[in-house]
């Protein structure tokens, strides 16, 4: 193992990994997150704590990670490039590692225009590709971003990135995934899948280039609560595709929430059986964390493997 990350161990063992997402609150108490952590801890291998997702101010990812670690879940810290320059990033990375964080997901971050502070200045000092490369370099070459040596106790993160098969240009999405792997990404979480056909085409290209053998790819799954939620996401969230059939299915369902859970389970089962190259699942049940255990169990992914 290159790191102390439990997620890395599980992925390396060849088992399907399961990760989930915990959204921090818009206030200064960690109790809610701790509660979610307790709910999920036996059903997931690690959980992401989002980093001011959609540029809405929430408890920071690192602080959230400390809260959930206390309850026994391994955190995956998310770091966007929107809010921090390279100085703050490295300070946060050193701090996070010193607090026991072992996994890092590098992302560009939604533009501040979407959030509750659209008049703020954004940073984007480095982009996600550079962050991946430089965090790996901290571990493998013991160097700060500037090239200066880290004399001791270098942060040794298991580095992840995101891939979005549903954004454009489609052909270039696989190129960019490969570029992230070249830059040093060790695991990938994809954007949530609704358009299975497109996802399969994407994975076909991934397999052709052998990318699935160089990086662990976790398929993103999100259970939908209602047809309105599904439609909203398809129309309003950039880079997301939601097929009309899915919206219709939810609309015609007697119990849409139940239907949403069933759809998610179907998707996971389908991918497990038919889509080669997937190393695990990332279940993003935002504001609906309570359905994750059922989904994990009914997909044959429970109990979670134990690693020391």
């Amino acid at each position, binding site marked *: 193992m290159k790191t102390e990350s439990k997620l890395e161990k599980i992925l390396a063992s060849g088992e399907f990994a399961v990760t989930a997402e915990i959204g921090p609150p818009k206030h200064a108490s960690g109790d809610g997150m701790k509660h979610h952590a307790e709910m999920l801890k036996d059903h997931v291998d690690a959980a992401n704590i989002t980093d001011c997702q959609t540029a809405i101010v929430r408890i920071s990812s690192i602080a959230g990670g400390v809260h959930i670690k206390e309850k026994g879940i391994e955190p995956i810290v998310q770091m966007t490039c*929107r809010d921090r320059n390279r100085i703050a990033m490295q300070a946060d990375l050193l701090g996070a590692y010193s607090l026991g964080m072992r996994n890092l997901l590098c992302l560009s*971050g*939604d*533009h501040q225009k979407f959030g509750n502070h659209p008049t703020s200045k954004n940073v984007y*000092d480095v982009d996600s590709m*550079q962050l991946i490369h430089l965090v790996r370099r901290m571990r493998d070459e013991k160097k700060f971003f500037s090239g200066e040596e880290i004399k001791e106790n270098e942060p040794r993160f298991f580095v992840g990135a995101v891939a979005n098969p*549903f*954004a*454009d240009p489609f052909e270039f999405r696989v190129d960019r995934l490969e570029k992230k792997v070249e830059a040093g990404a060790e695991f990938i979480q994809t954007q949530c899948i609704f358009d299975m056909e497109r996802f399969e085409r994407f994975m076909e290209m991934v397999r052709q280039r052998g990318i699935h053998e160089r990086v662990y790819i976790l398929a993103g799954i999100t259970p939908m609560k209602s047809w309105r939620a599904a439609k909203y996401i398809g129309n309003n969230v950039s*880079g997301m595709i939601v097929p009309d059939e899915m919206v219709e299915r939810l609309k015609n369902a007697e119990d849409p929430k139940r239907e949403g859970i069933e759809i998610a389970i179907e998707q996971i089962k389908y991918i497990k059986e038919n889509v080669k190259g997937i190393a695990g699942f990332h279940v993003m049940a935002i504001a609906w964390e309570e359905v994750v255990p059922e989904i994990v169990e009914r997909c044959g992914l429970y109990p979670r493997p134990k690693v020391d």
Partner: protein
Amino acid sequence: MIIAQQKPIQDIASMIDDCNKVLLVGCAGCVTVCLAGGEKETDILAASLRIKRKLENKPLETVTCVATRQCDPEYVETLDSYVKDVDAVISLACGVGVQYLAERFTDKWVVPALNTKFIGGSVTHGEWEERCGLCGDCVLHRTGGICPIIRCSKSILNGPCGGSQYGKCEISKDVECAWHLIYERMKALGKLDKLMEYQPPKDWSKSRDGGPRKAIREDVMIG
């Protein structure tokens, strides 16, 4: 060129609220081209302020003139005779011009009539678009001639991000994704492999982050 837009008349009027006589100085440079501060716009603004103040029973006397450019001391000097007995100077130049006037006419209240927005070019008559990020270290040769610093909302150098869809930036359907454009351009040029090369972080000290910048041509300075 520098693109600027006139502030609301109300805002300009309140800047010279307590003045009885003002000089309005237009600029024959960039702001003439982007139809914000040329001779015509200067006259229109002067008339608008006069009518407004007359309605308020506080008549305003205006003097207008246009400088060749307000960003050159030798052209600003030619305005000396105009400022003699005015209470304020309204500059219709970009932020640079306003500052040059304020620097020369230190005893006058100098105010900006425009908001300096960006540097860019014309799309069509009446429409201008931001094109250059003023980063001080041009990378256009790496991106097929499309600026990733300013045309990408996140200044990404290894783009596109996951929010690029149908060729549009996530922030708006009216904004093209610069990296989508770069991809198409490089594809057409047969240079897609260049986009697989990792671009390291930018040296932002060469842009405004490093502090106010200067450019010098020593060979032409004769003291």
